[in-house]
């Protein structure tokens, strides 16, 4: 949770500096943002790779554990696609890209800002941040009314880190492994699915 606060502060400071126009962003060498982004994706890969032990879980547990991240992917994309018809200014593929953030708002917003534009990047950040906050707040209710997998599904990619304590508390310790597994799979898919969704116009 402390991490989310730092991230929000950095973003707000950025907005304030932008309003005042003091940072020389225009003077940065072109493509530099892109290189920083690739660096970030490399380090996201490290956290997934270091968690590779997770794949052993499939062997130990039943194969049906794969159904969990699969249902999160299909459910999220279908839900995002469905609401895109209500939103006049958000196209089908843009809605899919925002949904494919799976709650990982820092990476998804930066990636989408780079690939599509700052506006959709900001919408992705807000939507995925809301997803994380909602999971943190509503997990007890979700577990009660929609089953023990629901908080893990709502948490998406964040189920492996930021929302894990809440999930463990309200779903039970036996669901921790499910949450980490699902979170790692979804984290891995965020940088792969977003460019794919945006390319599909």
């Amino acid at each position, binding site marked *: 949770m402390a991490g989310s606060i730092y991230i929000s502060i950095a973003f707000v400071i950025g907005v304030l500096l932008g309003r005042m126009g003091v940072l020389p962003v225009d003077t940065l060498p072109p493509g530099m943002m892109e290189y920083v982004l690739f660096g970030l994706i490399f*380090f996201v*890969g490290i956290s*997934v790779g270091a968690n590779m032990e997770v794949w052993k879980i499939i062997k130990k547990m039943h194969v049906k554990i794969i159904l969990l991240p699969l249902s999160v992917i299909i*459910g999220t994309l279908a*839900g995002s696609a469905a609401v*895109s018809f209500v939103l006049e200014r*958000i196209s089908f593929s843009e809605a899919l890209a925002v949904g494919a953030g799976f709650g990982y708002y820092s990476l998804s917003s930066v990636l989408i800002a780079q690939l599509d534009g*700052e506006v959709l990047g900001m919408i992705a950040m807000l939507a995925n941040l809301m997803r994380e906050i909602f999971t943190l707040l509503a997990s007890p209710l979700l577990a009660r009314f929609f089953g023990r997998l629901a908080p893990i599904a709502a948490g998406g990619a964040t189920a492996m880190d930021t929302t894990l304590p809440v999930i463990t508390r309200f779903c039970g310790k036996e669901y921790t492994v499910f949450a980490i597994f699902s979170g790692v799979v979804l984290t891995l898919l965020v940088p792969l699915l977003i460019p794919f969704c945006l390319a599909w116009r």
Partner: protein
Amino acid sequence: MLYVPLFLALGIGAGFLVRKRSGLLFVADKICAGLILILLLLLGYTLGGNQSILRNFSLFGIQAAVLAFGGVGGSVLLSSLIYRIFFKEVFLKETRNGR
């Protein structure tokens, strides 16, 4: 954007190699957090310099809320279905215990 899977694969390989070295992973985690802060600061900066974005902020907020609702709603409903069908034994045991 073929670079994205490439860098991701390189990262996974590197992460797998150093998975037992918690010191290195700690540093990698800090660098990752630092890069995120820099990128979001820059994203905030470009947004802050754009008047039309700031003027329409509430519209974007509503769009984001609707998208978040769709994504969370879809995944929660489908996971609930999966839970009842495939995790039924656990589910039945729980209801029998009156939970």
